[in-house]
């Protein structure tokens, strides 16, 4: 204690002359510690030890990650993970893309260390995140009640939005549709009244890059198409029961209307085979009028097609009111990704490792993992992290620049939406603000973890039921079969195929996990 003033003085001067982290308050180990890491993710099949973020994280914490990724010759992360587990030789940290399923399957068998106690005792920042985001810790838990990985946690609520050609509306003297009936009127006018003015009836009023988005239209008749950001997923109904949207009566009536729209030709007749090129082609050729797609990328077409199509203006608008009077945006960003990192059973430094994971949830670590190194790719301006002009004006996309620096990679970290907002087009920002003024989003079903017995039942019945559902669904939309007449036998077939058994295991798992 005698030297306290001296120590304070020293801290004070270093804080003035050195970077903020040099005071060592984030230091985890006294002696430098090496931890090996498997990090397989889509952009890079490995962990680059020369990342700027790694360099700084090492200086701040004393922990040095050593690249030990398995399966670098495949781009399929799930396959790489399987190879790693089957090899039996696991590095200290196992991270990257799509690790939730393997971690939750093999964690209870002893391949990974449970994190509950480690986090509660040694990771105050992660614990604080769980406390302020109820339900998320449960969502990543395995069936034994433990959780085995720290996830990548995306930020930002909105993913997709409804877009319409405002310039076409203006040409035809129409208003943005506020109800599903008005939407029908507008799309019919797009089909018949030649808004692109070329004298041909070649407009494709409603088009989608993913045919599943056609099914999403059932939300205009108060049905559901999915409970999460994955298509055809289960959802939790008003009674708190997990059910499948395609076994509900609302879906029958909604899909009947969708089939009718398809028959009328206001939905792209080729929607099932056009796939990813639909948006590029139909907007570029001045043919498409309405879609449901991602805010940022879809807004980008206004700038891209400015010179090619006079007056081109494709704007996000509020979801029209459903037949039951509800505005709903069923799609939203999932708050938890199946990506992140876990501690393997062979790691002898579990406490240091969880502290290192926790570092990325601290203020400094979060900025580092989102924006890269301060002073290199960004600066703090009025309390906000702002990318340098060099980064913002580079010909390389900002996310690629971040990946190169080791930021925004699929470690377990909490994304900061300010990262994306800085380079989101104005049209998209306006749209997001518009959507934000209304209560459009619905609760997401974040999935359940099955016991081995439950998993057996789910695996036995569900894939076939799903196949059958999708077969019937497309057939009905394409007009083979009368949905209303077929419905009873459809439901009966689902039951015969084991639908009730699947629902039963889902709900028992759901009650155990979230109850």
């Amino acid at each position, binding site marked *: 204690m005698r030297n306290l003033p001296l120590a304070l003085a020293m801290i004070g001067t270093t804080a003035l002359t050195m970077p903020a982290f040099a005071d060592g308050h984030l230091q985890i180990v006294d002696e430098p510690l090496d931890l090996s890491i498997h990090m397989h993710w889509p952009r890079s099949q490995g962990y680059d030890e020369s990342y700027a973020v790694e360099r700084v994280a090492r200086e701040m914490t004393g922990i040095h990650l050593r690249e030990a990724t398995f399966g670098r010759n495949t781009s399929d992360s799930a396959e790489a993970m399987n190879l790693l587990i089957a090899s039996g030789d696991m590095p200290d940290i196992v991270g990257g893309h799509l690790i939730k399923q393997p971690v939750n399957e093999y964690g209870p068998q002893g391949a990974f260390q449970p994190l509950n106690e480690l986090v509660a005792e040694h990771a105050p920042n992660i614990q604080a995140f769980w406390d302020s985001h109820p339900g998320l810790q449960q969502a990543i838990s395995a069936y034994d009640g433990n959780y085995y990985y720290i996830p990548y946690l995306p930020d930002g609520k909105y993913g997709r939005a409804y877009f319409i050609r405002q310039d076409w509306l203006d040409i035809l003297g129409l208003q943005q549709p506020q109800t599903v009936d008005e939407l029908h009127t507008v799309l019919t006018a797009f089909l018949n009244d030649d808004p692109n003015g070329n004298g041909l009836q070649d407009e494709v009023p409603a088009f989608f890059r993913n045919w599943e988005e056609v099914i999403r239209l059932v939300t205009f008749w108060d049905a559901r198409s999915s409970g999460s950001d994955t298509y055809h997923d289960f959802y939790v109904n008003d009674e708190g029961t997990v059910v499948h949207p395609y076994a509900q009566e609302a879906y029958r009536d909604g899909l009947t209307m969708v089939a009718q729209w398809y028959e009328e030709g206001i939905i792209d007749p*080729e929607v*099932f085979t056009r796939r990813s090129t639909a948006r590029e082609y139909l907007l570029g050729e001045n043919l498409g009028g309405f879609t449901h797609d991602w805010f940022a990328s879809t807004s980008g077409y206004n700038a891209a097609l400015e010179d090619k199509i006079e007056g081109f203006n494709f704007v996000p608008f509020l979801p029209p009111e459903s037949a039951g009077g509800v505005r709903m945006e069923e799609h939203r960003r999932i708050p938890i990704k199946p990506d992140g990192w876990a501690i393997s059973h062979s790691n002898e430094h579990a406490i240091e490792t969880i502290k290192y994971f926790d570092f990325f949830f601290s203020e400094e670590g979060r900025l580092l993992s989102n924006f890269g190194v301060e002073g290199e790719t960004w600066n703090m301006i009025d309390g906000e992290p702002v990318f340098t002009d060099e980064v913002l004006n580079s010909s390389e996309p900002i996310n690629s620049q971040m990946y190169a620096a080791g930021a925004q990679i699929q470690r377990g970290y909490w994304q900061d939406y300010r990262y994306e907002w800085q380079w989101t087009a104005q049209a998209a920002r306006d749209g997001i603000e518009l959507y934000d003024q209304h209560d459009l989003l619905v609760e997401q079903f974040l999935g359940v973890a099955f016991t081995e017995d439950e998993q057996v039942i789910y695996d*036995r019945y569900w894939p*076939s039921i799903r196949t059958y559902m999708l*077969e019937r669904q497309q057939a009905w939309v394409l007009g083979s079969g009368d949905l209303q007449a077929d419905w009873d036998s459809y439901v009966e077939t689902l039951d015969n195929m084991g639908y009730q058994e699947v629902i039963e295991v889902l709900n028992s798992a759901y009650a155990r996990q979230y109850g």
Partner: protein
Amino acid sequence: MSADPNVTGPKTEEIVLGAAEATRRRRGSRMVRLGDHMKREWQLYVMLIPTILWLLVFLYKPMYGLQIAFKDYSLFRGVAASPWIGFDHFETLFSNDQFLRALKNTIIISFYGLVFGFPMPILLALMFNEILKQTFKKTAQTIVYLPHFISSVIIAGIVITAFSPSAGIVNTVMGWLGFDPVYFLTKPEWFRPIFIGTGIWQEAGFQSIVYLAAIAGVSPTLYESAVVDGASRWQMMWKITVPSILPTIIIMLIIRIGNILEVSFEMIILLYQPATYETADVVNTFIYRQGLQGGQYDFAAAAGLFNAVVAFTLVMTANTISKRYSRTSLW
């Protein structure tokens, strides 16, 4: 032949003993001969080693893993430590209507593929052989080989575009002839013709190379004597070329039959829709949806093992039949 063996020939037991001795010597000399051969031609055997190693490492060692078809397999526990569960996976497989449908589709697609696809490369090879102008022959060959080198993803893209109801060439031509456009790729009844046609277009040219090589091996003296006898080109093709390459054709047929359950699965994934599962879903796509997407390797192994057993039986049958009736066989 003498009437009295006691006078002119050896006694019966001497004949038997002599034969046994000869066999013994022959066996021994065969071993010696193999040893000599190895010493003399050791370079050939050295060159054989990589192939044998490849077979051992990639085909024989994995057979050890086939047991997971009868186990509740966990990647982490490993093959040996996973518990046995008997025929559970096979029961699940055969109690599934969609598997039976997929099996039926596989057989139908393969059968039509065989009927229409197998003769095509042979016909192409015969036709190429009749072309006298070298530049034309080379150009034609390059054009028919080309689709083989294009990735399936691109081929599927071309097919989808060609059969598109609004812009596709097929529907455009049908429009000129006064037909209504058809959305082919969502019609179950059209899937098989499109798929098989695509397969023929993609592979027939490349497969014809084997037959061209066989034709090149036919002795020119046969043709020369046929010309002397005044045979027409047509007669030479049917009486000389085809019989000469018949063994090749039969071997290729046997191999093809062995692969009858191996329908080009990536192409189906790229072309099918839930709407066409009815005719398009094959065993491999079924396994893919059912097993691999959910990481059920044990289940997928069971289906794979079933595939292998069927294929093995078919090859054996085809080989035996061929051996009996044509004296040509794989082994």
